[in-house]
């Protein structure tokens, strides 16, 4: 593997002696850091905007990234505080050597925190990183993060543990005695006693250090605990865990050890993995992290239902992302990754995305649009729809005068921003109502409501109708609290249009209060009737009065409360109709909303087997040749060899006789090539067909449809079934 292919000057990557080829261009030729923006522009003709588009894209993504990190941090705060309390409690006990501590020492119990993190394993890394950062900054420099895949045996575990602990010692302290540590790490025997010795020497050193040096460790506690984190507790082998715990418990009085278990399933797993004799050596406290569903809701709330970012997701795209989350991985990280892809895809494929920016920059950008870009705007379907609605004079101006178009574009985009702001506020209000209805006809989560509203005009759906019906049956106290919530939402929104709405809601609320006063008066009547009821003991009379009561209630007009309730619901309905128009009805929505779900799905949730299946069964899908066009399940005999061979093999059972297969293949191929069958010598023809057959069969083997079989000579085994 030593010969460098580039050095030899030939660039071939075919070889029978090696499989890896490194190409190193000479240093002067090498571009040090290729600008990524360069890749952005190759595709499009309007090169003046690509740079700007790329910059916008990057800055937007960075904003979003920092936002998600902030969300993550906030969500973890509770967990981290709890952990901190837990650690400090044990630490103070250890320092003061309280009675409790001595008691625990007698039983040799190791303080243990069990973090229940949920099944979204891919998100755990981030949580652990923040945990270890937090501990490192606030409590102790001695942290070891262990993963099951690194620790197949107790020896590896100890090795890994000591390696990490001693390395972190180097990081914290000055680097002057690096050599010493480097050497010792290699030579030190991996045992608990050496670990303890190391701990003693380290703590003594920090104690005796000069104050100037101590600043690095100043945030840490005196004789800080050693924290060992098991990232994926479930994947560790039982034996390793058991041994480690037993060994540690023997030394717990010398070494203030704290274990943290990361658990994906349920806390029960500890007892299933460890026998009682071992688990009794642990003093376990349980910590629950936020569920991934809540995490997602927060993320959606902060990223999508906000006016902070100009970029928005269309209905289909959002649906795809949410479905991947719910049906495949529960991973918030993947959701964010999908979101990132959407941003990149939008800015890459939509030249007008240059206008997808903050309102402050909008005017400048609109006015610097080139003529081509103006043409791009005119080509947008939503814009064409808009033009058709205008009177003829304006139509001409829009289609011919660039400057007028720019003015109009700016206005429309500003409208779109305002629309989104209002949309979000009203959506939240509607959610206040729908989320408390029985059976949740419009969904429990705001994201479901959001999707429904984006998909089409929500007030035309049956679900909306039924939720209004249900809302008309709400009781007063619920209604009042909901109205109050709505008012808060509208007040906090930045939209200016809601002054009137707030007024109206206030009016409703005062009317409800007035009702209460009136109700007192009415109450007397009802109480008296009630009393009458109680007086009668006769069954016949009771029935009669009840019937009378019912009659009177039916005939009675609606009470004031009911009237008011109807009014409130109708008002909410009018708000919905006004503000929750689906985004794709708005002019120029293409600029701010990303809606190509197919691309997203293809990249994130691909179906390689289906693609293979289609290619083999229906080559015409890819190769647009008339000869290949065939209806139904059959294929033409002119199809590529591999398709024919595949089709033939579908007719076989578990084993396939190669000779029969070959014969069938040649029958088909000969028929396909009828015209020149006579001219070419049949012998050579035969050989070629044979060779083509061999190639097709070995390709099928590579694809995993068949494998060689020793059961019978010249047979192969089939590995897939079904299909045609």
């Amino acid at each position: 593997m030593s010969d460098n292919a580039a050095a030899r000057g030939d660039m071939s990557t075919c070889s029978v002696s090696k499989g890896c080829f490194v190409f190193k261009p000479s240093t002067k030729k090498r571009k040090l850091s290729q600008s990524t923006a360069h890749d952005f522009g190759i595709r499009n003709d309007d090169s003046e905007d690509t740079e700007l588009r790329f910059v916008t894209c990057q800055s937007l993504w960075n904003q979003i990234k920092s936002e998600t990190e902030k969300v993550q941090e906030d969500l973890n705060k509770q967990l981290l505080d709890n952990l901190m309390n837990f650690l400090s409690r044990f630490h103070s006990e250890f320092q003061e050597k309280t009675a409790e501590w001595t008691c625990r020492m007698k039983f040799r119990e190791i303080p243990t925190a069990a973090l229940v993190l949920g099944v979204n394993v891919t998100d755990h890394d981030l949580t652990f990183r923040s945990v270890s950062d937090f501990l490192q900054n606030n409590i102790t420099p001695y942290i070891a993060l262990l993963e099951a895949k690194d620790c197949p045996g107790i020896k590896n575990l100890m090795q890994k543990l000591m390696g990490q602990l001693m390395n972190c010692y180097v990081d914290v302290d000055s680097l002057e005695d690096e050599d010493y540590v480097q050497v010792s790490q290699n030579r030190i025997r991996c045992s608990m006693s050496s670990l303890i010795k190391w701990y003693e020497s380290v703590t003594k050193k920090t104690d005796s250090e000069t104050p100037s040096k101590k600043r690095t460790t100043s945030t840490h506690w005196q004789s800080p605990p050693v924290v060992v984190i098991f990232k994926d507790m479930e994947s560790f082998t039982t034996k390793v865990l058991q041994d480690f715990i037993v060994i540690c418990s023997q030394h717990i009085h010398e070494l203030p050890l704290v274990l943290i278990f990361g658990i994906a399933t349920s806390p029960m797993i500890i007892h299933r993995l460890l026998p009682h004799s071992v688990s009794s050596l642990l003093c376990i406290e349980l910590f629950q992290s936020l569920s991934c569903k809540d995490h997602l809701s927060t993320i959606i709330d902060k990223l999508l239902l906000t006016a902070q970012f100009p970029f928005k997701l269309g209905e289909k795209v959002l649906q795809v992302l949410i479905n991947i989350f719910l049906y495949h991985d529960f991973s918030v990280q993947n959701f964010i990754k999908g979101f990132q892809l959407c941003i990149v895809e939008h800015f890459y494929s939509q030249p007008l995305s240059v206008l997808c920016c903050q309102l402050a920059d909008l005017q400048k950008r609109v006015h610097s649009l080139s003529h081509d870009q103006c043409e791009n705007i005119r080509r947008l379907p939503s814009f064409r729809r808009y033009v058709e609605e205008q009177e003829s004079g304006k139509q001409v101006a829009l289609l011919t005068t660039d400057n007028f178009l720019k003015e109009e574009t700016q206005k429309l985009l500003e409208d779109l921003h305002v629309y989104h702001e209002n949309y979000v506020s009203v959506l939240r209000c509607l959610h206040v109502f729908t989320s408390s209805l029985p059976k949740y006809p419009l969904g429990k989560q705001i994201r479901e409501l959001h999707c429904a509203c984006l998909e089409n005009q929500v007030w035309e759906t049956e679900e909306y109708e039924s939720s209004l019906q249900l809302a008309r049956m709400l009781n007063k106290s619920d209604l009042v609290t909901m109205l109050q919530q709505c008012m808060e939402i509208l007040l906090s929104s930045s939209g200016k249009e809601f002054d009137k709405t707030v007024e109206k809601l206030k009016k409703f609320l005062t009317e409800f209060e007035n009702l209460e006063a009136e109700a007192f008066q009415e109450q007397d009547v009802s109480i008296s009737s009630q009393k009458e009821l109680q007086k009668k003991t006769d069954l016949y009379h009771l029935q009669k009065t009840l019937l009378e009561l019912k009659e009177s209630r039916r005939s009675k007009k609606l009470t004031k409360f009911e009237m008011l309730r109807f009014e409130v619901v109708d008002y909410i309905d009018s708000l919905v109709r006004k503000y929750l128009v689906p985004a794709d009805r708005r002019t120029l929505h293409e600029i701010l909303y990303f809606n190509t779900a197919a691309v997203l799905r293809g990249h994130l949730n691909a179906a390689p087997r289906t693609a293979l299946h289609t290619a083999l069964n229906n080559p015409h899908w890819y190769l647009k040749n008339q000869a290949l066009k065939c209806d139904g399940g059959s294929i033409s005999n002119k199809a590529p060899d591999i398709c024919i061979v595949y089709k033939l093999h579908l007719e076989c059972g578990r084993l396939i006789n190669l000779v029969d297969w070959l014969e069938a293949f040649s029958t088909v191929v000969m028929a396909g090539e009828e015209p020149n069958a006579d001219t070419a010598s049949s012998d050579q023809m035969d050989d070629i067909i044979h060779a083509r057959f061999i190639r097709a069969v070995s390709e099928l083997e590579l694809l995993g449809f068949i494998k060689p079989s020793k059961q019978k000579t010249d047979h192969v085994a089939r590995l897939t079934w079904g299909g045609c």
Partner: protein
Amino acid sequence: MSRSEGSGGGRRRVLQVKFVPDEEVLKHIADDTGIKVRKDKPQPSISLKRFVKKLENISDDEPQEILEEKNYVATLGICTQDPMGNGTSVSGGEVYSFQAPKRSSKMAELASELAHTPEQSVAPDHSKGPGKTAKTPQSSKHSSSNKEQLRSKKKEFVSTTPYRLRKRLAAPDSCLESESEYSASCSEEEDEEDQQEVSTVLSGQKTPAKTKAAPTPPPRNSLAKKNKEEKMSNLMEEYFEAHSSSKVLTSDRTLQKLRKRRLNQETLRDLLTKAPLAYAAEIKELNQQHESLFSKWMLQLHLGFNIVLYGLGSKRDLLEKFRTSLLQDSVHLVVNGYFPSITVRSILNSITEEVLDHIGTFRSPLDQLEFITKRFKEDPSLELYVLIHNLDSQMLRGERSQQILAQLSSLPSIYLIASIDHINAPLMWDQAKLSLYNWLWYETTTFSPYVEETSYENSLLVQQSGSLALSSLTHVLRSLTPNARGIFRLLAQYQLEKKDNPSYPGLSFQDFYQQCREAFLVNSDLTLRAQLTEFRDHKLIRTKRGADGVEYLLIPVDDSTLTDFLENQDEDA
């Protein structure tokens, strides 16, 4: 990835719904209510959701859950139009489901059918002619004219069925014939172990027979118009039929009997270069479509994604083109995953030794990985593009290798672009690895032949071991005493004499001893045994014990090589 194909039983039910819509549902409705339903298909503008709802109203026997999952399929956008024309219009379970019983002659039938399908108005007998006559002489060595007649007769009776399937397929008259024809072939018993093996491959799909997807009945099958329930029970029966028998019902013909049995690698390559590539223009067009994405790939690689290519056809040329057009000025590593002795170790070695110019060895790949990680983190100007052809190859598909590669690819300044081909390739990755890889999937169906990828493979039909075995045979034999050579020669000659006997067990030790004595090659069975031990150590012979406890000796080399060997020996002598 396999996610969307799903392997749960529930998902497979979805298929039935998916499969039903166009005609079956309408038929079903028409049968039930007697109302004439318009035959037009649901308008594309009507969302699938709504269509399903309609279905719910009409037929109560469809369980609710199906509808919900149907919604899921609909919302995932299977029905959305795709500009690139990805072949995703088929839903998962239609693709690969259970094994169903197959008639042994179906392949020949389909072949003749395919041969006439298109507009060519050739009479059946005529077009069957050339195919036949081209083949018959090859198997004539075995005085098979009689058999051949039988075969052609069999082809006329289109469906020859084992009696077990008689009730399903009505073709009783040819039953007896097919029995006699295939009596020999039934001799091979499939052992339990292999069945296991097959089923483990299918393990993801092992769910009760009820949930099995309906295989489309072959077009000429008259039973196609069956009621749904009947079909269901039939499916069940078919399932158990397919799994009950341990017999292998295939013909006994072997490649040995064909005149041109095996081609060697070079002739194969020559022949294939002679054969013109079909649909070159269309394939070129496909490739151009993919090539237009190169700059996008670069962008996405730089933004922290890694790219994986899938789809039928070799993606090697495409990646090579990507490499030569865009990576000329940057450090990059090309890994041929299909190379038979590639290891993760060698990949890591080429990174540490050639990219990082590090001299020295590492205790384990994990250490090496750690070193690489550290170096790349220390030096932000260091960038490396890694291209892996066939990430799913035999040598790299192991869990540990994938873990290491995934960790490697998760480094921000290492850009990975890889291709996969195996249908089960996505099963290599669990959620943790997937998130490390951070894949973006690209469908790049190229239809180009897998020339390089299969060139290393020990293909079934390619005579590969031949020349190698021959040279090793002569080499070893040359270092032996003349007597030993004679002993081996005897055995080889005897084996060649018996080559037409498929059940030849080998030469028994006693007989062999007798022959050797007669040829004055050994004087006691001890010397013979010593000699045989030496042969066995060099893997020249194999011994096995027969049912009667007798030891049989066999040379594990195919007959043609053995013939060549004897000829060579004759020349030498």
